[in-house]
């Protein structure tokens, strides 16, 4: 019976209910979008790293997992790695930031990189041949509306010679030699990708490399990709926590205002319920159920809206942003929305529960 009253109350004020649902939906979407971006960006990095085909990665001593560019190491190290037993292939790449914080080009030795990764699959065009020529992947091409022959302004003008399938290391590739010289990184690389002759030999090669290059950061591909999670990016985690906090506050305020006005509007009805013998708990229970229903409906709306976020990000956001739908966060975001909403209901709820029946009945 109370459920019917709750449902009818929500139906009785459709605009307020809709606003409540949409507001909680926005709260949930904010959470899911940010979590989706965190996972999307890190998972995309993991996928693209795996796409190189390497088994082991060597990084400069001062690097960390998420510093893509940074100070390079001498390219001579690639030759030294190649000499290790069981190393089938090794190639160096230079990730060079260009024209903005989030834009970078990976300088590669095309033949070596093709041998390591199995080669690019060209969707259109072909390989770069000279300086200031670029290969871009299809995500980058879609985000920046690029086609073969397009000029991309990244500090300098870069001409697109080919569009390749995504999933191999980077979004933009250029010949490493001119890139090194252009950015004063001659003979420098910041990644060495190593292919081992047999997967069974990966631990052996890893141990040898760690012994020989003890200051360097050396990971197996499995280890590296497992570390590429939002929890391992302190800034990202802090940022996510802040946005979730803001979302909860927004949800709390929306529900607080909605329920506060609902309680004022229903003062007389609360008086009637009390005259019929409704206890404070019964009255509070009505508002709590109403809030939970609102929060669940808002969460469903938020989950649906997060697909909209994903569409917008895929089509209109810069290519370095990738959003995933992180389903295991649905109940978490719903739980956070419910808890925030319930906290927002506490004051109006207790106000209603403590309402004096006689005053409430004389309220017009």
């Amino acid at each position, binding site marked *: *019976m*109370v459920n*019917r*009253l709750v449902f*009818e*109350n929500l*139906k*009785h004020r459709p605009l307020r209910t809709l606003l409540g649902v949409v507001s909680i939906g926005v709260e949930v979407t904010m959470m899911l979008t940010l979590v989706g971006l965190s996972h999307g960006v890190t998972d995309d990095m993991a996928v693209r790293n795996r796409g190189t085909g390497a088994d082991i990665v060597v990084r400069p001593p001062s690097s960390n997992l998420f510093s893509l560019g940074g100070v390079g190491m001498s390219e001579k190290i690639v030759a030294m790695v190649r000499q290790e037993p069981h190393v089938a292939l090794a190639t160096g790449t230079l990730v060079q930031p260009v024209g903005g914080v989030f834009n970078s080009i990976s300088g590669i030795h095309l033949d070596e990189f093709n041998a390591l990764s199995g080669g690019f699959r060209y969707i259109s065009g072909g390989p770069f041949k000279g300086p200031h020529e670029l290969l871009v992947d299809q995500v980058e091409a879609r985000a920046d509306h690029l086609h073969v022959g397009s000029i991309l302004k990244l500090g300098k003008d870069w001409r697109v010679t080919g569009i390749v399938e995504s999933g191999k290391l980077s979004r933009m590739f250029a010949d490493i030699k001119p890139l090194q010289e252009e950015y004063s990184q001659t003979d420098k690389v910041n990644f060495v990708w190593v292919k081992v002759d047999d997967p069974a030999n990966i631990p052996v090669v890893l141990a040898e490399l760690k012994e020989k290059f003890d200051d360097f950061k050396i990971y197996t591909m499995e280890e590296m990709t497992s570390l590429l999670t939002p929890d391992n990016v302190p800034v990202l985690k802090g940022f996510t926590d802040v946005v979730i906090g803001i979302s909860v506050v927004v949800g709390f305020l929306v529900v607080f205002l909605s329920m506060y006005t609902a309680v004022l509007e229903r003062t*007389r*009805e609360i*008086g*009637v*319920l*009390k*005259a*019929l*013998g*409704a*206890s404070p708990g*019964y009255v509070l229970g009505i508002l709590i159920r109403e809030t939970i229903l609102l929060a669940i409906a808002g969460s469903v709306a938020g989950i649906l809206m997060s697909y909209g976020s994903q569409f917008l990000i895929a089509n209109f956001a810069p290519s370095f942003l990738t959003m995933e739908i992180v389903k295991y966060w649905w109940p978490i975001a719903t739980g956070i929305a419910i808890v925030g909403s319930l906290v927002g209901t506490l004051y109006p709820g207790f106000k209603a529960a403590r309402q004096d*029946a*006689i005053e409430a*009945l004389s309220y017009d």
Partner: protein
Amino acid sequence: MIELRDLTKIYHTGEIDVHALRGVSLSVARGEFLSVVGPSGSGKSTLFNILGGLTPPTSGTIHIDGRDLLKMSDAERTDLRKKTVGFVFQKYNLLPTLTAEDNIAIARDIAGNKVEHEPQFEQILTLLGIRERMHHKPRALSGGEQQRVAIARSLVNHPAILLADEPTGNLDTENSTAVLEILRDLNTRLGQTILMITHNPEAAAYGHRMVRMRDGRIVE
């Protein structure tokens, strides 16, 4: 059924004490239909609120169905409203979002009863003439129909006393007469104890007995 002795009620409004009841003594027998008349401010509504357990008296003794109201906690007075007293208000006070049927059902739910009323209750709905109107919301009902739904709601938990506060105050003559006839019928056929507050002498005449209040006292 109802025994009041030297009942007083003082409302503290700011620095002023308002003496709403100044020593009311009254006995109402089981099955009696008592009318309480008096002008505005005579204390009728305060008496109604105290008898209904909506507010405690300041002093005096008050027993309803053998239970001492003065010793009751808030929770016990809430329980009294669920099981012992049924209210009928001047403004009907139906919940606007629920149908007539659900307005009655929620009173049962609050009292901890099954939502569906007993088959015998159909007799009361027939007597009230609202059986065909049960699926309508209050806004689709006339004032007379709303008041009859409110009467049905007040009776659905078989209260010992029906308290009616100006039940015809918002109704036209025809509907007033119908509602008063129904109250008298309920009293006659079911032996329902009724205490009706009114300022209308014609309405008061439907009761077995009438008491008149003025300035917080019963004057005759």
